[in-house]
């Protein structure tokens, strides 16, 4: 961060640029570490003693992969809640049902038919591949449930850390500022000594600093060389600040508006490894990457109505949001989709989510996602940054023309398996002996390719 960034930050804050508050990421990295420390400090884990952890782990794994899309332990989903199912049913019946429920029903088992009808005839898949041990592991898991990690400090919705401070300058600025101040103080003390030697001392009535500054000012005023130097210095700083400011107008690198739903890319794309294009599916077809419609959210969230026990989202300002808060955010998705989570049905009362757009290109520039994602094979992260680590999305790149052009100059076009590029490459190679082809060589610097 350079000086003008610093000054701009102050500008921005004073102007309250973007009516949506900006979270300053850079300042909060330290705070984040502090928060993590706090957590480790307070959290003491204790485990129940009488649980066969290996068996539970095995069962949990199988449950998550095979059963979790329709069952939960404590809640009805597509199928019944399975917590304590071993207490309700015979083990043999359960084994038979899980392995092939249709067969069991066909054999005329009344219980089987009853439960089938209770759930409106939703078919449960057969699992002939499961051994008895597998099934018993799963059942063991349904009985013991999760191994609770008891956290002493209540992690939900506790804001940890101090209030967010304004823009903090980097070390360079401190050094520069310090150097300047030291230099001025030196000049000031020199001038003072000169004055004293001349016998011009005035009665010492004011505080030292104020007096020093005054003397400094008088000194500068009297000394032509200093006056000129000082003026040039001020002009340079002024020009630097003005140009820096003007060039940064409309550049919203780091823009991180508050969204209507606290959506964490870190949880979705990071922890759960959801492919970017699962949600942003039009990125491969269209110029827009597309903000996923609510029905895409519901593909998963129809079954995921709450986050796991210890999930937290911690923002860079140090605010930490826990389960209660996050479950409420999922509920917002339900509200938008018109999903009645109690009765598991769509009410038709929908309400679109009004996201705040982060990446805004001016109208006079044409950008096409599919060009970059499909034809160019560019990874999303190249422009959007470490999205998998972002709790709250922000604009990672400058999105200025210089930034685009640079990449077009440097990026080698992926020629493999693309007949279109192969032909151009062949022509270029024949005529100019070009080996590597950059986007720029294919006309990627021409004005009209993006401005029309």
């Amino acid at each position, binding site marked *: 961060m350079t000086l003008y960034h610093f000054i701009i930050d102050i500008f921005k804050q004073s102007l309250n640029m973007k009516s949506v508050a900006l979270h300053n990421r850079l300042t909060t990295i330290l705070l984040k570490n502090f928060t993590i420390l706090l957590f480790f400090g307070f959290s003491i884990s204790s485990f129940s003693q009488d649980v066969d952890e290996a068996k539970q782990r095995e069962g949990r794994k199988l449950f998550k992969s095979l059963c979790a899309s329709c069952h939960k332990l404590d809640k009805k989903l597509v199928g019944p809640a399975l917590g304590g199912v071993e207490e309700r049913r015979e083990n043999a019946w359960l084994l038979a049902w899980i392995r092939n429920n249709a067969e069991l029903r066909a054999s005329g088992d009344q219980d089987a038919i009853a439960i089938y009808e209770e759930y409106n005839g939703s078919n449960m898949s057969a699992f002939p591949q499961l051994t008895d041990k597998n099934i018993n592991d799963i059942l063991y898991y349904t009985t013991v449930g999760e191994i609770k990690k008891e956290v002493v400090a209540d992690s939900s919705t506790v804001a940890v850390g101090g209030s967010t401070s304004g823009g903090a300058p980097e070390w360079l600025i401190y050094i520069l500022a310090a150097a300047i101040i030291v230099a001025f103080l030196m000049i000031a003390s020199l001038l003072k000594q000169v004055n004293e030697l001349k016998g011009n001392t005035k009665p010492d009535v004011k505080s030292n600093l104020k007096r020093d500054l005054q003397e400094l000012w008088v000194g500068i005023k009297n000394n032509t060389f200093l006056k000129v130097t000082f003026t040039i210095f001020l002009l340079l700083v002024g020009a630097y600040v003005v140009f820096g400011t003007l060039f940064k107008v409309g550049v919203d690198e780091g823009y991180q508006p508050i969204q209507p739903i606290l959506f964490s890319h870190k949880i979705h794309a990071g922890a759960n490894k959801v492919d970017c294009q699962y949600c942003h599916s039009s990125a491969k077809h269209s110029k827009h990457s597309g903000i996923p419609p609510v029905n895409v959210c519901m593909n998963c969230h129809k079954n995921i109505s709450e986050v796991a026990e210890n999930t937290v989202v911690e923002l860079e300002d140090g605010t930490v949001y826990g389960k209660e808060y996050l479950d409420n955010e999922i509920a917002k998705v339900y509200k938008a989709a*018109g999903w009645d989570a109690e009765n598991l049905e769509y009410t038709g009362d929908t309400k679109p989510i009004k996201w705040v757009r982060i990446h805004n290109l001016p109208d*006079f520039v*044409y950008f096409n996602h599919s060009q970059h994602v499909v034809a160019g094979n560019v990874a999303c992260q190249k422009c959007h940054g470490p999205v998998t680590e972002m709790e709250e999305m922000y604009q990672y790149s400058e999105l200025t023309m210089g930034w685009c052009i640079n990449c077009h100059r440097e990026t080698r076009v992926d020629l493999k398996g693309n007949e279109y590029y192969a032909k151009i490459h062949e022509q270029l190679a024949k005529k100019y002996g070009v080996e590597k082809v950059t986007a720029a060589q294919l006309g990627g610097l021409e004005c*009209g390719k993006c401005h029309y």
Partner: protein
Amino acid sequence: MASNKKYWKSVEELKDSSIVETLSKNEFVEEIPTDQFLGDKETLENSSTSRRDFLKYVGFTTAAASLAACEGPVVKSIPYVVQPNDVIPGVADWYATSIADGYDFANVLVKTREGRPIQIMPNKEANGTTSARVQAAVLSLYDEKLRLKNPSKSGEEISWADADKEIGVKLNELKEANKPVVLLTGTLASPSTQKIIEGFTEVYPNIKHVVYDAVSESGAADAFMAMYGKRALPNYHLDKAKTIVSFGADFLGDFHGGFEKQYIAGRNPNTGQMSYHVQFESNMSLTGANADKRVVVKPSDQVFALLNLYNAITGNNISSKATPVDAEVKKMAVELKKSGSKAVVLTGLNDKNAQLVALAINAALNSEIVDVNNTLNVRQGNDTEVAQLVSDMKSGKIAGVISYNVDPIYTLSNAEDFAAGLDKVSLKVALSTENSATVNAMDYALPTPHFLESWGDTQFDESTYGLMQPTIQPLFNTRQVQDVLLKWSGNSTKYYDYLKAFAATTILNESSWNKALHNGFFKREIVASNIKAEVSVANAAAALSSSAKKASGFELNLYTKTGLGDGKQANNPWLQEFPDPITRASWDNYLTISMADAKELGFSNPVKDNGAIDGDYAKVSVNGKEVVVPVMIQPGQAKGSLGLSLGYGKTFGLKEEMQVGVNAYPLYVNGNNIQYGVAIEKVSGNHKFACTQVQKTIAGRHDILKVASLKEYKTVEPKDHHHGWNKPAYVSYDHQEVEANTIDLWDEHNRDMGHHFNLSIDLTSCTGCGACVVACHAENNVPVVGKNEVRIGRDMHWLRIDRYYSSEVETREEAKELGLSRGETYRKLETEAENPEVTFQPMMCQHCNHAPCETVCPVAATTHGRQGQNQMTYNRCVGTRYCANNCPYRVRRFNWFKYSDNSEFDFNMNNEYGKMVLNPDVVVRSRGVMEKCSMCIQMTQATILKAKKEGRLVNTDEFETACSSACTTGAMVFGDVNNKKDKVAALAEDKRAYNVLDYLQTKPNVIYQVKIKNTNEA
């Protein structure tokens, strides 16, 4: 050969007026009106604002502006809740559908973006074509000013249910009382709707269906009925014709819906198969302008000429009269006979007898060109029934009128009778898409959807069954007329289900509905009918002859303009601003008059120093009805005849800016497009035309147009130094005459790699119809600037169609050789101008490889792309306008104002509905920048991207521009010359290919093909 001709754009130019000379030198004729905002010197001096104050203000505003700019807006992105499967934001969906608004009929493809139709293109698979009006119809969809939004009763909003109930009760009352009710519609050309109407009239036997077309071709339909027992219009396969003789039939315009495509298909100089087309007409029509030979003859003489031709061909001796063009008629009789079954005669007179005579001539010729089986259903209006209806209404016989999308109060010549009659009607219901005077006069105004919001089917000719599907959710609280009628008939079926069932049972023969819907059409077998009634053509001819003999005074030929047609879309700014192909005037209709008559009566069209032209007013009276119209002198207008276009002067509900022109319908008595006994008188006043003909002149440059005869084309070497019809340009270099392409100011670049785009325009095939102009508007968000701005030469058309008149007369040099004085030469030219030849030339940015504009831009805002496109970067442009001054083609347009969100320009870009038509892939330009044709770089880029994404080469002929895809006749061909298989690659090398102003060596990427005319020489 071309060089013997003098090309001119306006009559003024012939007179060598100094204004034209001045105009030719100035790109921007209008001075920047500095005094308008500075005021005069005196006020400036008296002003209390001192220089220091001024600087303070400037400083303050600059600071305020910069501060305001710091605040970035918060943009919301609102995704769908449930995204429709076929919608990907940012990707266009195309739907095949049909347009049938009662006047324009076409099988089209509609481009939609995020559920909004933004462009209409012809459905070429269905043999569909689009005109300027069809192209512009997409904007009429978003006409929030005129469209009806909710059902209303006497101005009060009412629910559909209440309207149904009240009207149902009333209908039943009238049925009980057996009082006649009339359902008045335009031509529907929809089999299922016809069936629904039949069902409706079965339930209410007191209801009669009357078809009323504002611009009628009732005569032709009646004549066909008399001869072939079916009320329809004959189809003409002009592509197979060898000789075409037309008596005032504007078949490239609106005659029978237009035959452009077929006509041009029959005129291919490369194959040598070129029809010989002679047009006898009084007005200068688009068809006449394209004819090989145009014979100027006033309407009554047209009738006699037609009869003389009939006599000459059939050997009959119907009483007729000698006309000044009899020699020509005789020649044509021989020609027609020679061509035999490949000859055809058409007439545009809306008169049953005249049409019968034409049919009889064709029958006598055994013409294969006339198709009596695959007939046209696009004009079904019945003038007799309409006249009967009005008189019945007036006498109080009619108890109810249900109108659907017709506006008789505007379009009937006896509108006051209709209005008076309407007062005596007890049930008055208007079903209408748009508000109109007629809707306003009715009790119930029930909104129906635009065709882009509707389901439906169409049957324009017998062989093509077309389907119509909605391309957008209904914008307003509308209900389709079919649904309304089904409901009132007590049928609870939804029209969509009805249509599906109807198509499945009667049309599709087990073929898939989905497939037909996807294609937008279904080809049907035509049942050939061999009915040919014996009609006494002799009687018809005699009646025709005697009616024409009554002709006296001036003869008025009412016509429809290419832009506005019957006036249905008068509130469409694209069409209003569309310059008429012949007169190049927009935003107006006018009385066209011959030069001789104008001189006699003292009319003139002075050119103003800003390139605008003015006109005098004339009072025209026909049968006691008078209108006052501005006069435009039209070269090629028959002496003693006048022309006036219908469709203008509509006022009810229109935006103020669109209320232009004069309503000529009051003169359109009995649907007769020819009115005899017209009196005209000069009245005071000065009319300001918005005419682009003198603007953007060519500065006296030559080698713009090249025209050759078919004979020359076949026999003469094109590059021959003396007689060649496509000679290369020669320039003087070191006092030597050398070929222009041997010297060059610029360095040559390698252009054989990647794509290199060329656009070829065949002047032989271009009819000047202007579909491309409107397509360009839609594709490129070209703003509409309004009448006043067009008048002073600030029109924004990226693509214009220049119309040149030419006369077969000596150049000045040759005149000198012949010893003609200057005055004599011009007099000679003026006489020639009585019937000039016309050539159309679409002109847009030529995308010069050596572009003069690029070198003068101080900020490098206009640069050259490797693919041949001259690129214009609006965000770089600072508006010096040097480029426009340096462009020899006059194709750059300066944005004088911000045309969007500006109440001064209250056109489509200024309201939220109209904005929906904007193409999201093209930026809406702001004030102070230059803009021009981009060769649809957004389309070429999209095509390239598609290929890249699919990892393949671009297919042959895959590249398109908006103009080339809209071109009905295939005159415009776009493509990549580096792909030798692309059509354009061969065209670029064709012997007819030339560049405009090739001696300048700008090396344009737009190629023109020499116009070949069939002069019918051996």
